[in-house]
């Protein structure tokens, strides 16, 4: 197998890109055919149950009219969510990427960060008056860019699918994280080759690199500013200055405007009209809108609020700036609105984030002040703080030590009973967390010397959450070292007694201060298989705020990176970057399919039994040969669809009728998507399947599952 792969590699390096595409397609066809054969019998078996699916949908979607056409749609085509192709045992990466993609606020943040880095790169160019080669990007920035690229290609693929459903019938809706994987491999050689890796590790890894990129961004930002003022006295400085002042002015104006548009948007519920209009209108308008958007999203206001509470950060300077311009009242009103928004619908937030994302496509200059809220975004989203508190029982004074945490590793069963006792009673997550944050007493012979009492006293030591992140990652320690293993990895055997996984979680009892926050489960990474170095990872994600997804018709004129075919789009990430990279990515992709096939046959990688046990009623989505579709065609179909379905589309979505033509097709597409609101999707590499919540819970629960058990739980913060 490896021989074959290297052959491909060497061949591909010397062949032109176009040929690669062809060869890739060939491989893909072969591959999908294989999968088809593989799952054919299943699909047939499950056909009757497939019929039930739309009915269960009816219960969720309030407008029955809209469902009728959807039923046929669904039967024929896969669900409108994009899978990720397995590039050779990369299910660990795919499962994590799907979680991140659906992680609230993450997409928008990546877009912003990417835009920011793009801008700084540009600035560098301006200053140095020379071409900065794109390929000399720092690796962590490059990771950010490739992540951004993956996200946009997933979005585009989804949009084009929604507009152009027919084109995707019998095709697999999937892209491949090739560029990201390559970057990751360059950053960390551990991920080279086709070995299975720990999903939790790769998550830490990716988030770490993004944080590094943010840090680099921050420092480079400062350095460029410095350089500007130091060296370049001439044009560049002037330009930047006037740019700054201008944007400052507009930002303050936008504070009002943003507030205004927000409320308007809230009432009307329209998203895209503005953005589309804005695109065609003057830049200043766009900027206004954008600025409003950037302050609106639920994530962001909360975050900025957080940083206002904190004494550090750059926020005070903004504040003073506003004050100096006499706009403080406006600012305050904006805050109020934010607060309202937090209380109100978190739904509109996603929408605004999307809008913000669109804005970044328009490449409006970001204000420097705006950077700070999301430069430490990874920290705020995923990083919390723990307090180790030692309290003297005599005087009740305590000392504290603080530690940052990214995830909580909790046991799934009691340590003393790790022996293979099949009658293990499965524990609750609450129990697991209290194991993690248990109170320890310092008593008996070794007392605690209290500095206040000047005496040896008894003391209590407890671990508490001081700051809780937006997203709490709970890592279930499913792998226990079995005695005999020489190799530390091989020796880790899996504990298959899963915890009872609650949909809602409150950390209040382990927090330093009372809070109204609680957490909702939005994604689960499942592991099936027996050891940490083998098995298969899949991801369940709950689809929420679907109506806020910006379904955008991809236009060739607007998008330089047009989605030709799904596959082509997927492996053409570096358009505009160097050709060498493209060819490598293409070839290794082509090569990668084969090893994965082989490994799959060996039973290590894809365990079908794993998700079959998940008691799925749904059929595997039909798979077929991918068809090529041009986006212009897609547009036409969408328009056609729109005219056919207009009445119910309007009724169901509750949108205003005076929308533009494109608007309505968006609504329609959205409407299709809305059927999946609140549903759980199983992402198994390129396959995406629908799960009802009860089925999902079944899959997670200990009764039905033996090999496939939850490994990482992702909870997002919900304010009440």
């Amino acid at each position, binding site marked *: 197998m490896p021989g074959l792969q290297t052959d491909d590699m060497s061949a591909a390096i010397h062949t032109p890109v176009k040929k690669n595409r062809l060869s890739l397609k060939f491989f893909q066809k072969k591959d999908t055919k294989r999968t088809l054969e593989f799952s054919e019998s299943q699909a047939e078996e499950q056909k009757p149950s497939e019929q039930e699916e739309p009915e269960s949908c009816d219960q969720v979607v309030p407008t029955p009219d809209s469902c009728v056409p959807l039923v046929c749609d669904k039967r024929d085509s896969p669900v409108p969510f994009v899978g990720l192709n397995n590039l050779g045992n990369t299910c660990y990466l795919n499962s994590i990427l799907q979680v991140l993609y659906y992680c609230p606020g993450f997409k928008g943040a990546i877009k912003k960060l990417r835009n920011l880095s793009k801008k700084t790169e540009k600035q560098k160019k301006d200053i140095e008056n020379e071409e900065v080669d794109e390929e000399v990007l720092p690796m962590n920035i490059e990771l950010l860019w490739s992540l951004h690229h993956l996200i946009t290609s997933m979005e585009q693929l989804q949009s084009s699918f929604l507009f152009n459903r027919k084109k995707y019938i019998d095709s697999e809706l999937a892209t491949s994280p090739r560029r990201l994987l390559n970057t990751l491999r360059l950053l960390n050689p551990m991920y080279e080759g086709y070995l299975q890796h720990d999903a939790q590790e790769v998550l830490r890894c990716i988030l770490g690199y993004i944080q590094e990129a943010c840090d680099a961004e921050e420092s480079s930002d400062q350095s460029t500013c410095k350089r500007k003022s130091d060296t370049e006295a001439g044009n560049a400085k002037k330009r930047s200055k006037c740019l700054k002042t201008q944007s400052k002015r507009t930002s303050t104006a936008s504070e009002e405007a943003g507030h205004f548009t927000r409320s308007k948007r809230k009432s009307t519920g329209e998203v895209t009209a503005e953005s589309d209009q804005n695109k065609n209108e003057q830049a200043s308008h766009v900027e206004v809108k954008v600025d409003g958007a950037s302050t609106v999203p639920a994530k962001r206001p909360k975050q900025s609020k957080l940083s206002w509470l904190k004494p550090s950060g750059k926020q005070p300077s903004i504040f003073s700036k506003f004050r100096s311009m006499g706009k403080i009242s406006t600012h305050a009103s904006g805050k109020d609105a934010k607060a309202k928004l937090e209380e109100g619908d978190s739904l509109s937030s996603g929408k605004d984030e999307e809008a913000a994302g669109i804005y970044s496509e328009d490449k409006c200059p970001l204000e420097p002040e705006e950077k700070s809220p999301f430069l430490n975004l990874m920290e705020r989203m995923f990083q919390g703080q723990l307090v180790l508190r030692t309290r003297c*029982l005599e005087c009740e004074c305590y000392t504290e030590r603080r530690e940052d945490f990214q995830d909580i590793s909790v046991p799934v069963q009691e340590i003393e009973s790790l022996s293979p006792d099949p009658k293990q009673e499965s524990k609750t997550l609450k129990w697991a967390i209290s194991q993690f944050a248990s109170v320890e*007493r310092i008593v*008996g012979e070794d007392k605690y010397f209290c500095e206040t*009492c000047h005496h040896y006293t008894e003391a209590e030591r407890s671990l508490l959450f001081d700051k809780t992140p937006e997203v709490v990652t709970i890592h279930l320690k499913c792998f226990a070292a079995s005695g005999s293993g020489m190799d530390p990895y091989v020796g880790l055997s899996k504990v298959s007694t899963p915890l009872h996984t609650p949909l809602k979680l409150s950390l209040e009892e382990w927090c330093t201060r009372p809070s109204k926050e609680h957490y909702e489960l939005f994604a689960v990474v499942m592991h099936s298989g027996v050891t940490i170095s083998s098995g298969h990872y899949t991801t369940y994600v709950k689809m929420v705020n679907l109506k806020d997804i910006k379904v955008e018709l991809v236009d060739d004129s607007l998008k330089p990176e047009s989605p030709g075919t799904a596959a082509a789009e997927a492996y053409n990430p570096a358009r505009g970057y160097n050709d060498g990279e493209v060819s490598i990515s293409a070839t290794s992709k082509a090569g990668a399919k084969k090893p994965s096939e082989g490994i799959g046959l060996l039973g290590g990688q894809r365990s079908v039994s794993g998700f079959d046990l998940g008691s799925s009623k749904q059929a595997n989505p039909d798979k077929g040969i991918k068809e090529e579709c041009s986006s212009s065609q897609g547009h036409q179909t969408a328009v056609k669809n729109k005219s056919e379905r207009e009445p119910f589309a309007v009724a169901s979505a509750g949108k205003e009728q005076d929308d533009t033509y494109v608007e309505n097709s968006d609504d329609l597409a959205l409407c299709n998507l809305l059927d999946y609101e609140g549903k759980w999707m199983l992402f198994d590499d390129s396959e995406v399947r629908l799960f009802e919540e009860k089925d999902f819970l079944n899959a997670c629960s200990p009764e039905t599952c033996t090999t496939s058990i939850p490994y990482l739980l992702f909870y997002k913060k919900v304010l009440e």
Partner: protein
Amino acid sequence: MLDGLITLQVSYVIRDEVEKYNRNGVNALQLDPALNRLFTAGRDSIIRIWSVNQHKQDPYIASMEHHTDWVNDIVLCCNGKTLISASSDTTVKVWNAHKGFCMSTLRTHKDYVKALAYAKDKELVASAGLDRQIFLWDVNTLTALTASNNTVTTSSLSGNKDSIYSLAMNQMGTVIVSGSTEKVLRVWDPRTCAKLMKLKGHTDNVKSLLLNRDGTQCLSGSSDGTIRLWSLGQQRCIATYRVHDEGVWALQVNEAFTHVYSGGRDRKVYCTDLRSPDNRVLVCEEKAPVLKMELDRSADPPPAIWVSSTKSSVNKWSLKGIHNFRSSGDYDNDCSAPLTPMCTQPEQVIKGGASIIQCHILNDKRHILTKDTNNNVAYWDVLKDAGFSSPDGSDPKLNLGGLLLQALLEYWPRTHINPMEEEENEVNHVNGEQENRIQKGNGYFQVPPHTPVIFGEAGGRTLFRLLCRDSGGETESMLLNETVPQWVIDITVDKNMPKFNKIPFYLQPHSSSGAKTLKKDRLSASDMLQVRKVMEHVYEKIINLDNESQATSASTNDKPGEQEKEEDMAVLAEEKIELLCQDQVLDPNMDLRTVKHFIWKSGGDLTLHYRQKST
């Protein structure tokens, strides 16, 4: 009793003969209404007796000293004749409260004894502590104990899962309640030792408990900041009072069980009407967290309350204003508004002294720096302050520790051996001291006779405490025979000072002198040998007799008797040469052990370099 594996240590206390003031927080208070006396149990390990007649100039009457750690609780029994105390030294002691001496010591607890409870009608006392045990004691049996007849039967109540911090028994002795870090109250019948119930409700440690006379109602104060009223009949909490911002550490209640006085970490003392909790009065605000309170029950309603805190002074606060207030019915019902204290000045103050809050032992293990609560810094010499005045200069060969030990036990008859027939041997052992040893002590100095001497496990329980002058007493002498560890016997009875340790070292010319490196001679000397002596050796044997240097290798120190010559030599040597270790010039007063420990620092044999002074 003495386990061979446990190392025993001897300690002594440098202090004034009479310590008139509480030197630290006061953990417990008891009033003797008949004699108008107040007993305070201090964290300085001393129980003091005070006269509370206000006209008296100096309230101090006496100290009851026998504990060696915090005294955590005291109860006055037998109408004020007997006092029982519980301490962090893990003992419970029985005292004659009138005369102030310790009658017996109960050592059943294995950890700090934190709380006592007393049933007046039955003269029954219970003790409980961090070892989770509760012991019941019959006071009449305890007071009848003598040194020879010292066995006492006790019943114990077990079942507690966590360290006990509070205990209460009703006056009739029918119910006993314990509060612990388990957060539940456990209730027993002391007559049968049967568990009666568990009461759940508090969310933190329970630090204070009270029972009414017939044992039907219980009040508890907890670190969770609440006071709870429990009905033992209904086995449930009847009311929860949230009057404090922080933990409630002390409770008192009037005879009728209608008004509770509470104090705690927030330094405030409140009086709360149990029937209408909104009716609460802020009695006073202390300067430190309140540890204990004692109602002056000379009249009803109580005219005053004594309050002790983590500071050393004890204050008496008048309650008269409150009763006026109460009768007028003009309560401040608005709990949210900050109350103003009824009293701003205490009616009476028992002044406290300063306590040491920080100390640092200097490298010579002889001098100590301390800081006290008044921010005074003091410099102590553990020998001088114990009475040591350096005899005939400072002979480096004197084992000061050994001498001190001899001084501490000089009244112990066992040390007064008749050495006549052993004299020859003895003289050799004690490094040639010309002693006709019939006299006591070490022959150099005496420690103040009031110095307390404590034998205890290293870092653990105290076994025996006595005053230096008391070691001649019959009982003490007997107890010393049981307690004193062998290594102390060696020194004080057998007069065997520990041998000096020999350490090997090398002497080489310093590289800067350009002298040829001699063959490495491994020398050996007592680690107490001063650098001065080595310099003499160098001057005498190497510089002067350069040619013969090879011949003199070993002993420099083991040849006493050439004192006069050496004196001159020493002066000369110090003028001419200096010794270095790790390129650091050595002080002639340093001994080799110090050089090795603080300058050489590394392992391997100590290497010293010598060179002639450049001047």
